[in-house]
């Protein structure tokens, strides 16, 4: 299930009906101090050590107690840091509950919830009429607006980089420098085409730029394998080579769409030309939340807007 809650804005922030009893969570060691917690919703990155617990994203709200139980198998320490990679509720839904459950007698206050400032703006701003207001306890309380933010925790440097206008306009990727693990959020989802949330400032070129940034940061071990491990927003554990394939796919698709747009083809004509055919079996879907048709439309709109602005 990829970023269930998007679709042009309206249904985006509304969590799906989830019965925690039906969800199997798996905690997998990555390397160094870092673990990957997987289940329904976005991946949660867990870093543990003598200082306590740090999370990258918090999953869906109903799963928070179950996720916390898994985290407690690794550490009894307090959650001190949470980083939200972006605004979508399959990554931020558990903020308030995890912050509460993560408090221990060692806590000196609620955890810092770090996010790029656009995430705070969207979570604290007006919500669509059919959706509840997001409680303040779930909002980021440590937002940043500069290109990056860093801090030291559990014996390693943690660097949070903003990658602009990619999946959304508030995306962050998080690098655990000593563990050599990069958590990407939904700018990288190896099992599906990326969701380009145009309504929230996402763009195809931003996606590609973000993936190139990830490739800049990661360093493979022998013969392009291993080394820096990459935790995607959804899906399996990866490394740089997997990101390279994904970046290549989006770059090739961009080149094709740009050519067709410059030749004056309409969206329907482009769709009929099947410009993503060679990648559809790997990343596409005909049903579900994010279909190939929706991806094609998002790419077209994203690049068309750019073409218009270029003409100006």
């Amino acid at each position, binding site marked *: 299930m990829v970023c269930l809650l998007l679709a042009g804005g309206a249904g985006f922030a509304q969590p799906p009906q989830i019965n925690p009893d039906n969800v199997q969570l798996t905690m997998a060691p990555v390397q160094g101090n870092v673990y990957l917690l997987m289940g329904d919703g976005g991946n949660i990155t867990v870093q543990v050590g003598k200082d306590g617990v740090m999370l990258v994203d918090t999953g869906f709200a109903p799963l928070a107690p179950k996720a916390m139980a898994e985290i407690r198998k690794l550490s009894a320490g307090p959650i001190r840091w949470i980083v939200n990679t972006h605004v979508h509720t399959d990554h931020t839904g558990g903020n308030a509950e995890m912050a509460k459950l993560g408090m221990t007698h060692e806590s000196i206050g609620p955890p810092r919830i770090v996010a790029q400032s656009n995430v705070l703006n969207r979570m604290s701003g007006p919500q669509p009429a059919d959706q509840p207001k997001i409680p303040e306890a779930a909002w980021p309380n440590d937002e940043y607006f500069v290109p990056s933010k860093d801090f030291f925790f559990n014996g390693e440097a943690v660097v949070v980089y903003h990658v602009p206008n990619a999946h959304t306009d508030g995306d962050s990727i998080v690098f655990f420098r000593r563990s050599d693990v990069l958590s990407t959020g939904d700018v990288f989802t190896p099992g599906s085409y990326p969701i380009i949330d145009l309504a929230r400032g996402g763009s195809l070129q931003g996606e590609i730029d973000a993936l190139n940034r990830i490739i800049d940061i990661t360093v493979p071990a022998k013969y392009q394998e291993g080394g820096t491990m990459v935790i995607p927003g959804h899906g399996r554990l990866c490394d740089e080579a997997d990101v390279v394939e994904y970046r*290549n796919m989006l770059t090739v698709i961009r080149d094709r769409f740009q050519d067709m747009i410059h030749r004056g083809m309409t969206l329907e004509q482009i769709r009929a030309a099947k410009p993503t055919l060679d990648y559809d079996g790997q990343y596409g879907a005909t049903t579900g939340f994010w279909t190939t048709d929706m991806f094609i439309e998002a790419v077209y709109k994203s690049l068309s807007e750019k073409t218009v602005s270029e003409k100006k």
Partner: protein
Amino acid sequence: MRHLPRRRTAHSFLLAVLVASPVFAQVDFTGEWAPLYHEDGPERLPGPELGDYTELPINAAARMAGDTYDADRISVVPEYQCRPHGGDYSMRGLGNLRIWRDIDPTSEKLVAFHTHLLAWDSERTVWMDGRPHPPEWAPHTWQGFSTGVWEGNMLTITTTHLKTNYMRRNGIPRSDKAVFTEHWTRHGDYLTVVTVIEDPVYLTEPLVRSDNWYLDPGQNIGVFGCEYAPEVPRPEGTVPNHLPGKNPFLHEFAGWYGLPYEATRGGAETLYPEYQKKIAGEYHPPDHCERYCKCTTLFDCTLNSK
């Protein structure tokens, strides 16, 4: 009377040995192996011709990937410069092979075979101890995760968890959803490896390939080594590709070999003998062999070899 107990003891000892001997390794593949290139030499040594999709049961998606592939990619994309063959391609060579095995010293049971290939120093483990394949979330690797079982004297290996790579080195891809099965058979000093690739993304039927090796105890496998380095100034993130319908090289292969273009496009239909009847009269081979006329080793397999 005295001899009876002794005879009984001998029988008991023999029985104990037989019972204790684990059923494993009907064949030992351990050794240094040199590749034979009598099959598919031009594809495996200098590399395939662009647009040659013959013998591949590919679908339209794979064909589109091949048609839009620009071979500049392997030099312009730095991360491709040291990218090794996938596990399903490794046995095609290039380079020599070493196989060794792990035996559990307590039980004398076979735990694993290991392979080392010259190309990219690729190493692979074939687990023989019955362990399961990793969960879905586990990282994928170039060589994948392999387990083996004996089928008589044949070793059958199943490999999953592969990274995306190439089916053929002219842009025909193999996805990370593929699974491949190998059958290793030893005939004296010869090793035959039959590989069956199933790829739900790019194949409509399994792709079957075979490769042969001969025992070469005196060989020395050198160090491959690879360090990637940008060689051509290009904007960051450049991924060379041809736009659909704009690749000027796709018809060359058909022209060089006198094949009808459609026959070079691959697909399951083209693999079977009946297809020869379909293209009868359209195949006009050149009067004289003009390309890769001799191709048995790395040294003689050149474009103008006679």
